[in-house]
């Protein structure tokens, strides 16, 4: 059997797409650890770049790759449901701080969507891009679900969400220092609302309190945006 025959055979099975996804992610994670978990070396961004390069070099269409990668993609659903567990673990904190957390959550959720769409619209982004941009502060599985429901582009959302997470992890410190906010609970919650899981991972590196509040904010913001955003789209007049 010639190499090209093996290639033809393999590229027609889902095995290759699935395997190459796992390998690329682990390579990306290795690079991320080697660079001391610098937020700029985000493993999702690196894995995506590696895979795009591989597909481009081999001339593989995205649809062919996705035949295999869909098995990983499918797990986003159960993972979203699983977010209920850490959310429940933080129920006590939530109950004790209902007013400040609830108020900050609603304000943050609303501002995240409105400011992103507002700036994008003012600078001439298309309607499809704006719909894909709106849930950018929400954790990826929920954000993609929201976009899919409302006629945006889920894969564009995935890219914008990851970019937001990286930006949040990088910009949070400067912004909060400028505002002279020192309380780790407040800092963590703000990062979690704005920058979901990537911001939360960053917050855990600073302190346990900051991480816990960021994680709580991530879960709550996903829930609130999923219910709030369709209403906003209706008001906006589709």
């Amino acid at each position, binding site marked *: 059997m010639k190499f090209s025959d093996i290639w033809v055979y393999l590229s027609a099975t889902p095995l290759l797409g699935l395997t190459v996804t796992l390998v690329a992610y682990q390579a990306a994670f290795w690079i991320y650890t080697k660079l001391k978990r610098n937020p700029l070396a985000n493993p999702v961004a690196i894995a995506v770049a590696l895979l795009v390069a591989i597909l481009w070099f081999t001339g593989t269409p995205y649809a062919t790759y996705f035949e295999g*990668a869909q098995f990983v993609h499918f797990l986003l659903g*159960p993972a979203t449901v699983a977010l209920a567990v850490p959310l429940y673990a933080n129920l006590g904190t939530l109950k004790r701080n209902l007013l400040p957390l609830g108020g900050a959550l609603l304000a943050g959720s609303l501002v995240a969507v409105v400011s992103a769409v507002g700036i994008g619209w003012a600078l001439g982004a298309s309607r499809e891009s704006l719909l894909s941009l709106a849930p950018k502060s929400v954790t990826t*599985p929920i954000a*993609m679900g929201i976009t899919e429901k409302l006629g945006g582009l889920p894969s564009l959302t995935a890219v914008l969400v990851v970019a937001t997470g990286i930006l*949040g992890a990088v910009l949070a410190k400067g912004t909060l220092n400028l505002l002279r906010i020192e309380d780790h609970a407040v800092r963590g919650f703000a990062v979690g609302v704005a920058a979901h899981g990537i911001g939360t991972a960053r917050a855990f590196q600073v302190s346990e309190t900051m991480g816990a509040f960021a994680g709580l904010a991530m879960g709550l913001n996903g829930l609130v945006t999923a219910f709030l955003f369709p209403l906003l789209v209706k008001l906006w007049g589709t």
Partner: protein
Amino acid sequence: MLGALTVLLIYQLVGEVLVQLTGLPVPGPVVGMLLLFITLMARNGAPDVLRGTSQQLLSHLSLLFVPAGVGVMLHFGRLGNEWLALAAALVGSTVITIAVTALVMRLLQRR
């Protein structure tokens, strides 16, 4: 592990069915998450198996975004045309969101 995964899938399935039945514009898994959250409140805690499986699934959460992220290759044209608007929106909105969330929370804590 298998049992817990089955539970997660059942909640997702019920969520999807509810969304189809009611026409709610919310993703099915989010409804599933809400239902599971309510269940955990009702029974005052999560069983250890469910906690373990959820933690495992969520610890590899970023891997799950990769296949969709690779879809960026379908949007290079769009990104080329709109990169300035999208980049400005991401940077501006992220800073504003962090600032507003933190300021509102501090304001309400002082009351």
